[in-house]
């Protein structure tokens, strides 16, 4: 199967400073991958590199097996949709009209129907006619997620989709993205909430200073070594009845792997 998104040894410099350095990642249809990392670790740059929004210094970015730079605007939009971190909306348009921008190439009546449906899924049906600038930041965020879903693109890339949302809305939105994944879409999101990431993502990629320091299932990746390298945090993943929880505190001393246990022979038992 062709990966929906493929990054191969991607390096990006911004303002002469390396921001991404040799990062590789593949996101397959049907899976949801989370990008974790401290502020400035290169998460957003990774998403933008994947979408062809900036020039790669090294490596390659492919959407559905094709180099992203070789795609026309229309082809790229049919392969991937993006929710940037910036939630500002230029004008006070009603929510449904903003969500309908996800279906901009469809007939107006269809676009409106798709938009209203997407708004209902993010719990915003009642506010469909309200101006997006008369909303709270979280409500506006949900409207923008509705627009993302309304695109129906096979790859959804969202920069902090859970930012500014109340706890229930966070689960709602991540659940919606999971639903899209179950329907065969590939999902790539950046997240700051480690517990939310552990619960909603199939795989996690962890960045530290532009390098990949972890890649794998949440249980594999969220170990003390990676938490220390990426965030300078002490912590561990604990499985509770509600799901996995990442318990962390600020590191008191840099993490060192435990000394290897000396071989214990059967005689010593």
């Amino acid at each position, binding site marked *: 199967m062709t990966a929906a998104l493929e990054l191969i040894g991607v390096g990006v410099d911004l303002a002469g400073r390396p921001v991404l350095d040799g990062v590789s990642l593949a996101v397959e249809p049907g899976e949801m991958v989370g990008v974790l990392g401290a502020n400035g670790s290169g998460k957003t740059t990774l998403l*933008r590199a994947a*979408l062809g*929004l900036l020039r790669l210094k090294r490596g390659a970015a492919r959407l559905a097996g094709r180099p992203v730079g070789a795609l026309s*605007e*229309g082809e*790229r*939009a*049919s392969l*991937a*949709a*993006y*929710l*940037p971190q*910036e939630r*500002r*909306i*230029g*004008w*006070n*348009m*009603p929510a449904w*009209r*903003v969500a309908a*921008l996800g279906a*901009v*190439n469809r007939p107006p009546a269809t676009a409106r129907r798709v938009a209203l449906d997407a708004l209902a899924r993010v719990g915003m049906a009642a506010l469909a006619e309200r*101006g997006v*600038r008369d909303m709270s930041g979280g409500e506006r965020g949900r409207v*923008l997620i509705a*627009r993302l879903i309304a695109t129906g693109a096979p790859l959804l890339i969202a920069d902090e989709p859970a930012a500014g949302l109340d706890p229930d809305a966070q689960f709602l939105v991540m659940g919606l993205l999971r639903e899209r994944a179950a329907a065969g879409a590939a999902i790539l999101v950046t997240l700051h909430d480690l517990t939310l990431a552990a619960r909603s993502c199939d795989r996690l990629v962890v960045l530290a200073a532009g390098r990949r320091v972890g890649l794998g299932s949440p249980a594999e990746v969220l170990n003390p070594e990676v938490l220390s390298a990426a965030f300078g945090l002490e912590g561990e993943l604990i499985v509770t009845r509600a799901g996995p929880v990442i318990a962390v505190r600020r590191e008191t001393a840099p993490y060192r792997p435990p000394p290897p246990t000396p071989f214990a022979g059967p005689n010593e038992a």
Partner: protein
Amino acid sequence: MRLLALLALALVLLIALGVALGETPLSARQYAQAFADPASPAGEVLWSLRAPRAVAAALVGAALGLAGAAMQGLLRNPLADPGVLGVSAVSALGAATVIAGGLALAIPGAIELAALAGALLAGGLVVFLAARFRQPETLILFGVALSAMGGALTALVFNLSPSLMATNEVLNWLLGSVANRDWGDIAAALIPAVPGAALTAYAGRGLRMLALGEETAALSGLPMARLRAAAVAGAALLTGAAVAMAGVIGFVGLAAPHLVRGAVSDDPARTLAPSALIGAILLVAADLVARLIPTDEELKLGVVTALFGAPLFALVAWRASRSWRA
């Protein structure tokens, strides 16, 4: 649609009023005569003086209103308009240079072409700056600078102008007026204005998408580069047409979109057409005011719009600053 029909009706009524009213009072019999025989003296007043003047005001107002709506949508900035961003000033500079240089008489259409060239040049510069500096405030500051530069160079033209006559002509022209325009002038202004209007209409869906920011628009699948170029070229052609026809008329482009925003739920695409109509209404009304207020020297149209427009600009800036902070 109902909004457009209402505005169009209001515009037609206002133009009719502009034809009916004037400095020279006419009797009922003279009106009848004007309709029966357009070549009669009363007919001359109505159809060769007042009618083209009212239509010219409507055309200039529509061009500026549409240019303002397109620029505000393109730049996601409620303070954008051809005047604020310096497009009018540079356009005026082009025309002033031609008038003072004595080329206006030598080459027919030189003023119009120079005004258009100035508008296109400034429009291109604004887009270049808008791509580099994303904050709305920054762009307005560049607009102020561009405006000041245009004004300074126009002052230089005054300074170096050899004849008092030419200086006077430039000054009169800069104040903005649609007095003594004939049907030929209107036809000439339509040449850039019609394609300009078509380009902005084409750009409409791009303007709506731009409300979500550059990156979302770039990935929306719309041909954004083409739509953006169409919006700029359209706005510049419209501004050039307006400046060529009537000189510098401020604030209509700024005000018109704000007067219709509420009725079209702030949608930048649907703001375009009603902005053109309301711009036309504003300017026909302003010209009526200029004509009918009894002063020794007739008020210039640009002076009237600036007197009403400048306070409005302050009000819009006040309201816009709140949303920038949000």
